[in-house]
């Protein structure tokens, strides 16, 4: 970092993974993330980087946080146990940014993005999140002329999805015009039920069959989205509709499938 001598640093690197990975390798998730952020944030302070933006995740909020989750829900209750190792590290990271501001006057800020999707996503069947997983299932069903696609759960849970280019835009916006203590939520401020999401994806990929909702499978939390009032008030808003984001993701997904660049795990 000394050699590059950057004016500003985006700290997006982290060790990430799903529930299973978090649950089976808690020490790695805690240690690696603490190490990554401690090294980068501390070095940025030492060499006098003018501004640093640290990326976290909305899993830093308590399991029973109000929905939409506001920034001041932080540390008001116990975390979701399945990924608390990762969450604890991220909370330490945003606290380190706050501490550097308090003790040294460093302009280090943090952003907490909601669920992301878009080109370059992890489309592998084993490791992917709900949105790419649904897309992959429906593409396969369309190709095979399948009559129905199975979807885990009732389809009722509601989730929020932020298009990856919108996050990039928000981060640049924050880097330019936000200097504050609070780790800001980055999201759309709107959620959608999994059933409605499935319908949208079906229209995009041209799948015309039915859905079989398997209600014996767990639904997870009924609703999860962030409160973006603060970032909106600063003048930033997500620009990409879910419709547009999905169709762009679909084009990328198809190309990724054929080029063998679908990441696994």
């Amino acid at each position, binding site marked *: 970092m000394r050699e590059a001598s950057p004016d500003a640093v985006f700290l997006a690197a982290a060790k990430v993974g799903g529930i299973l990975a978090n649950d089976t390798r808690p020490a790695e998730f805690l240690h690696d993330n603490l190490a990554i952020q401690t090294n980068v944030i501390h070095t940025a302070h030492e060499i006098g980087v003018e501004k640093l933006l640290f990326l976290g995740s909305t899993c830093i909020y308590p399991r029973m946080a109000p929905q939409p989750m506001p920034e001041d829900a932080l540390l008001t209750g116990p975390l979701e146990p399945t990924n608390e190792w990762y969450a604890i590290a991220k909370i330490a990271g945003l606290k380190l940014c706050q501490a550097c501001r308090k003790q040294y006057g460093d302009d280090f800020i943090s952003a907490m993005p909601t669920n992301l999707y878009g080109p370059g996503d992890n489309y592998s069947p084993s490791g992917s999140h709900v949105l790419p997983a649904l897309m992959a299932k429906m593409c396969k069903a369309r190709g095979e002329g399948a009559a129905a696609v199975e979807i885990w759960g009732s389809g009722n849970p509601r989730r929020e999805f932020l298009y990856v280019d919108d996050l990039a835009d928000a981060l640049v916006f924050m880097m330019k015009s936000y200097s504050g203590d609070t780790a800001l939520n980055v999201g759309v401020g709107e959620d959608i039920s999994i059933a409605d999401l499935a319908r949208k994806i079906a229209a*995009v990929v041209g799948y015309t069959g039915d859905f079989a909702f398997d209600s014996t499978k767990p639904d997870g939390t009924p609703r999860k989205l962030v409160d973006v009032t603060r970032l909106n008030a600063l003048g930033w808003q997500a620009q990409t509709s879910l419709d547009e984001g999905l*169709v762009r993701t*679909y084009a990328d997904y198809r190309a990724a499938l*054929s080029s063998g660049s679908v990441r696994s795990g």
Partner: protein
Amino acid sequence: MTGGTGFIGRHLVRRLLGCGADITLLARPAHAQDLAAELSGKICVLPGALDDPATLGPVVAEANPQIIIHLGGYSDPARDLSRSEQAMTVNLMATMALAQAAMDAGVEAFVTTGTSEEYGHQAVPFHEDLPMKPLSPYSASKAAVTLWLGMLHDTHGFPAVMIRPFLCYGPGQTPPKLVPSAILAALAGQDFPMTSGQQTRELTYVDDLVDGLLTAALNPAARGRVLNLGSGQEHTALDIVERIFALSGSSGRPRPGTVTERASEMNRVLAETERAAKVLGWQATTQLETGLRETIGWARRHGDCPVPLIPEDF
């Protein structure tokens, strides 16, 4: 979109509506008002005529599109030269005008369709890098469009995508194309006079083609490229017609050898589709039998009516 009320255009519009796209259609001035009323605000309509290229720039400026899909054009593959000027005006000159306006508007992609006939008499399968050897004013004008858009891309970075569809068929296509002509005769219980039918054709189902157009429009790696979209399923024309009569349960039958072949008829038409597979991840998934059943089913219920632009459940 131009050609939005044509056979392929209608299917693409329906898919795009499902994707939540904001669509503006170019329509002939004489029909624009009626069409706008029919679409009741769900799709925007602007009047403009491909045979009057000077009118196109202002239309594009008004629509201010993110993406242009240019499907409209002159599509009569007749070999005689009597309408050469019309072919060049409607295909080449109109595309030049649209492309210029698209450049001014800063579009993300400009997708247009050529024809497998741009390859002419060459050994199959046709690879995109083969020289163009068009056989009619129609395919010559499309080849000229390919050259023009390729130049705009290479010299000016224009995001043109040049799709070459291979004999598209599906619900709502109308005669004189082979598949709908044969289907309507079969359903009417009539015999079907045709050439020997020994020439091969590659039939591509319209849903598959629409999928290719959609992904091509949004894939940055497609820009500046010619892309064949073909199913990879080569059949003789006679085989296609016989299948149609069998699937229709028709009392009529094909009458091969009763029609003289068109001058310079292409003996085999087959696409090399590796590029589309690699760049777009595109592959046709509809088997000929499935596609023909769907197409015959539509004709049984709706005759030679095109599919409606707006799906009933939309």
